């Protein structure tokens, strides 16, 4: 159970407390940013339990690299960068593994579960989006995840992914074209 008293505290305070060994402070950071990380990781890897392992790795890596966090950027941006890097590494690892041992197409590399949510319309949208995202090349998928799932602007996306704004815009445009093609099958 995370200490209630840490709710509402600033990120800087929580970081300092975590560095001093306060487990509850780090628990609050995890609680605060879990959904943000879930959107990135599951948006990229699919809505599955394997994505949770990566999600956990994000926060474990965050904890071990907190001393390197200078506070120049927002903590959310720092966490997001870790999430993006770990997810892209996982995608590369899967591609290498599956290309060596099996012949699977891009969207067969990922699994997704149907949510236990009873809302049929939500489930349908989620499944369509999952399949469409998994059919995209990872470098387009990450842009779409940032824009669609997080609602970041192209400028914020460029900052998080550490790629030029022009590259974000061109990949976004290509992603939109590909998505239109993919989503035609669901009309």
């Amino acid at each position, binding site marked *: *159970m*995370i200490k209630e008293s840490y709710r509402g505290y600033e990120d800087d305070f929580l970081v300092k407390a975590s560095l001093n060994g306060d*487990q509850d402070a*780090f*628990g609050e950071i*995890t*609680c605060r940013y*879990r*959904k943000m*990380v*879930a*959107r990135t*990781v*599951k*948006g990229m890897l699919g*809505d599955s*339990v394997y994505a*949770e392992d990566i*999600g*956990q790795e994000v*926060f*474990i890596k965050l*904890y071990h690299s907190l001393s390197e966090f200078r506070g120049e950027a927002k903590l959310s941006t720092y966490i997001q960068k870790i999430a993006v890097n770990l997810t892209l590494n996982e995608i590369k690892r899967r591609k290498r593994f599956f290309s060596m041992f099996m012949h699977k197409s891009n969207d067969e590399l990922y699994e997704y579960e149907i949510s236990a949510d009873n*809302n049929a*319309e*939500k489930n349908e*949208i*989620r499944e*369509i*989006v999952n399949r*469409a995202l998994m059919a995209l090349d990872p470098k387009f998928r990450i842009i*779409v995840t940032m*824009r*669609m*799932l997080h*609602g970041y*602007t*192209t400028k914020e996306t460029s900052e998080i992914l550490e790629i030029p704004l022009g590259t974000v815009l061109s990949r*976004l445009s290509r*992603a*939109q074209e590909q*998505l*239109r093609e993919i*989503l035609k099958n669901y009309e």
Partner: protein
Amino acid sequence: MIVSSLEDEPDNSGNISKLRESLEFDFRIGFEERVTDKIFSKGAVKKRQDEFDRSFNLAFYRIALSAVAAIVLLMISIFLREGSLSFDSMLGLSDGYTESIICLLTGN
């Protein structure tokens, strides 16, 4: 709606917000506890130490092996060129080079 959610324009109709709501991803209940358990449990600390030791040893042996292989190759090439593995031949001071060394040192 899915493709238009990628545009930078303001979401006046609220459709994009609704789309994001239906796509709300989250981890299973108890996620924070599982994370803090992995980081702070005594077993986790020891495991990290063991992993570091293993990686360090692996790196050391890889570098040491490469260095030994390089030395062996060097000695083989010296042997093939000089015909022996004497101290002089390893330092490049065999008879054939004496004259050229003298020329180099005296400028003649």
